[in-house]
């Protein structure tokens, strides 16, 4: 929150400059249904610490959480400065008609476009936290210890966060052909450890959010090419909105499951001749919020970092970048723009105002009527040519 002094060029002495953060004003935060409390409160923290008044619009697809926020926020916070407004699309539409000083949106690219279009009316700056197909490159690992760790972390990055319904959840894997079977076996045994023989009975797995998404995911599996590629799982229970953690090996690349963000418990594994081909594969798709790479090969790590583009890259783990406050959390390209977490949250809801204090000391060469001598002065100033300037002042140089 403190003002930040900045260095002024010696030429401008004794001028001082500083950057003063100020709140933007009244901000609107849209949160999504998969982490309905976290994704509402995390940006709210930034908005509050930056000194703004805020409106939270939770997703109507997580009604219990939405209700809870509506009841608790006014109870614990200043309800004249922080408000929760519940509702569906009509409420969202109405909110977007109002003039905001900032809109922060977490959700799908489709809605993100609508938000940004609406923001045009009042020239409101927006932050869009979207998603994408976050790939995990898994190099062929020989050590069984490494393999175990990787299997746990992949499951930890796919099914543990809201049963795959996460913007940074692993969407699909990229492995070498020779490693595919081993990968499937590893995942199977670790899935059993985490969720038991029958995951439907497990208390450790979130549910698909609603029928609409359940039907969408079921639809992805109905594609014959996809169904034929199932290597594990595939059990579906319409009543319980349950889909078993399912692994596919090489579903067709033009099937919807390999084009749209999955956002569910289905994990395609795409095999490649060599692992370096994963870079080209990833680059042929829209930029995702996160790229994951599991390997001990330093060269491969370096290549993935410099030759792919994504919100972030995490090596040898998944999703955990979310909890590091010193790392900005945000997308690029189709995965969005803007960022938050830690100080980035404060900055996202602030305006960094430049404040410059000048002395009354002044020089004629700054003003008309213009002539060559003054032009000389200006050249010396911009070139930071103090010596020449000194001579000009003394009248020794013409």
């Amino acid at each position, binding site marked *: 929150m403190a003002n930040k002094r*900045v*260095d002024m*060029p010696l030429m*401008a002495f004794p001028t001082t*400059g500083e950057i003063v953060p*100020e709140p*933007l*004003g009244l901000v609107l935060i849209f949160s999504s249904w998969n982490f309905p409390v976290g994704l509402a409160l995390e940006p709210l923290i930034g908005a509050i610490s930056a000194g703004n008044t805020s409106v939270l619009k939770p997703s109507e697809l997580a009604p219990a959480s939405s209700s809870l926020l509506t009841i608790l926020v006014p109870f614990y916070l200043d309800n004249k400065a922080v408000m929760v407004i519940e509702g569906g699309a009509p409420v969202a539409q109405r909110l977007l008609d109002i003039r905001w000083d900032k809109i922060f949106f977490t959700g799908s690219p489709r809605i993100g*476009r609508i938000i*940004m279009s609406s*923001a*045009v*009316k009042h*020239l409101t700056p927006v932050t869009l936290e*979207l998603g994408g197909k976050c790939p995990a490159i898994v190099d062929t690992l020989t050590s069984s*210890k490494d393999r175990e760790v990787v299997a746990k972390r992949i*499951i*930890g990055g796919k099914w*543990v966060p809201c049963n795959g319904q996460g913007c940074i959840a692993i969407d699909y894997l990229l492995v070498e052909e020779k490693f595919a079977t081993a990968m499937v076996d590893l995942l199977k045994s670790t899935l059993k450890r*985490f*969720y038991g023989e029958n995951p439907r009975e*497990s208390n450790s797995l979130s549910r698909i959010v609603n029928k609409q998404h359940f039907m969408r995911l079921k639809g992805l599996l109905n594609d014959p090419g996809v169904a034929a590629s199932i290597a594990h799982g595939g059990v579906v229970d319409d009543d319980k909105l349950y889909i078993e953690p399912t692994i596919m090996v090489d579903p067709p690349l033009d099937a919807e499951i390999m084009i749209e963000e999955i956002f569910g418990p289905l994990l395609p594994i795409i095999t490649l001749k060599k692992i370096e081909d994963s870079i080209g594969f990833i680059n042929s798709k829209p930029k995702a919020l996160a790229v994951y790479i599991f390997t*001990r090969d330093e060269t491969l790590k370096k290549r993935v*970092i410099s*030759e792919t*583009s*994504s*919100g*972030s890259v995490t*090596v*040898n*783990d998944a999703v955990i*970048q979310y*909890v*590091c406050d*010193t*790392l*900005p*959390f945000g997308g*690029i*390209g189709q995965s969005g*723009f*803007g960022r938050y977490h830690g100080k980035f949250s404060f900055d996202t809801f602030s*305006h*960094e*105002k*430049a*404040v*410059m*204090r*000048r002395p009354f000391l002044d020089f004629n060469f*700054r003003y*008309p*009527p*213009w002539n060559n001598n003054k*032009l000389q002065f*200006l050249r010396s*100033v*911009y*070139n930071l040519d103090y010596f020449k300037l000194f001579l000009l002042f003394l009248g020794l140089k013409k």
Partner: protein
Amino acid sequence: MELLDIDQSMEELRESFKSRKTRSIAWRRSQLKGLQGLLEEKEGDIFRALQEDLGKPCAESYRDEVGTVKKSLNLSLACLEEWTSSKKVRLPMVLFPTSGELVAEPLGVVLIITSWNFPLGLALEPLIGAIAAGNAAVVKPSELSPACSSFLATNIPIYLDNKAIKVIQGGVSVSEQLLDKKWDKIFFTGSARVGRIVMSAASKHLTPVILELGGKCPAIYDTLSSYRDTKVNMLKDRIQRNYGNDPRESNSMSRIVNKHHFQRLRNILKDPKVAASIVHGGSMDEDTLFIEPTILMNPPLDSEIMTEEIFGPILPIITLKKIEDSIEFISSRPQPLAIYAFTKNETLKKRIVSETSSGSITFNDCIIQFVVDALPFGGVGQSGFGKYHGKFSFDAFSHEKAVLRRSFITEFSSGSPPWNDFKLGFLRAAYNFDYIALFLMLLGLKRS
């Protein structure tokens, strides 16, 4: 420009970016040096083009467009290594032995749309940022400054890599075609009206934008005891010293850009109540697009001159009972790009900083904040969003990618399902950075 040309250009730019050549530091350096060469060798042509488009005197052109860009180039070349190197970040011990860093990467192919008033400076300044950050770029100069637009279209391909940096000239229809394409960033300088069109087009492709708009920048002029004369007389005196008895004869003043803007300004002065408030100047010549430096005293606050950005040589003076009332006056209006205040009163300065909002504030001077690279240049509210200059230009065209490296060593089963109360306790301790509790739990000495 034909539709096909634009598509071909885009194809070439995308190929250039894909080939990764714009990422090499050597390439970026060569392009920035190319711009240095352009400014050095073609200075005469630049002065001539600005003289043609806007009647700008050389010293003004140098001060506002050439010198500024040279300065920015020097800075960018000196700082390129530093700006492009990745930055390590500290991570909580609970994640040891993890390392984190921020890696700046270019956005891709960017579009820079500039305005007519500083047609060279406002095209090259953002371009420096785009190049330093490793992008391919298109510059779309304003068609209202055709000589400068032509100058850029002719010379940029000579001094820069024309497969990666292009100038595309034209009017509204060319702009529309360009805005239809998918860009990785759009940087716009101009009016709020066109800013809305740009942002709207950008939303189709989820393209991030920077809008450098304007507004009515006020200058608060405190009563300074050392001055014996009235403000108006002091201004009259200064105008005479700068521009002579007949400013129309002066070589030191730019021209109104075109007939459309001349008529706009003339109409503003036509309002009888506004005309009645003229205390100096007011004479005009449509043939030479000349309007005398004109001062008004308390024109009506609801007249167009006090509601729209003037963008011309007319200066209204609004008087107040006490100078502190200026804060309320300014705060009740849209946030401007800059607020100026001439005062020695420290209390007033503090109040202005904390009780008004604007892109920037400058005390006891004007405009000069533009040349200070350490200060971000950008608006808030109706004056726009985003910022540039100095390193802020580099950041404007970069994506700071977060890179986290974890080791294979540490793997606690407490971080994975099947969940139970102990594991929940473990997670609580982890988030609270309660290392002692974590340690005890790991040893089995603490349940949860």
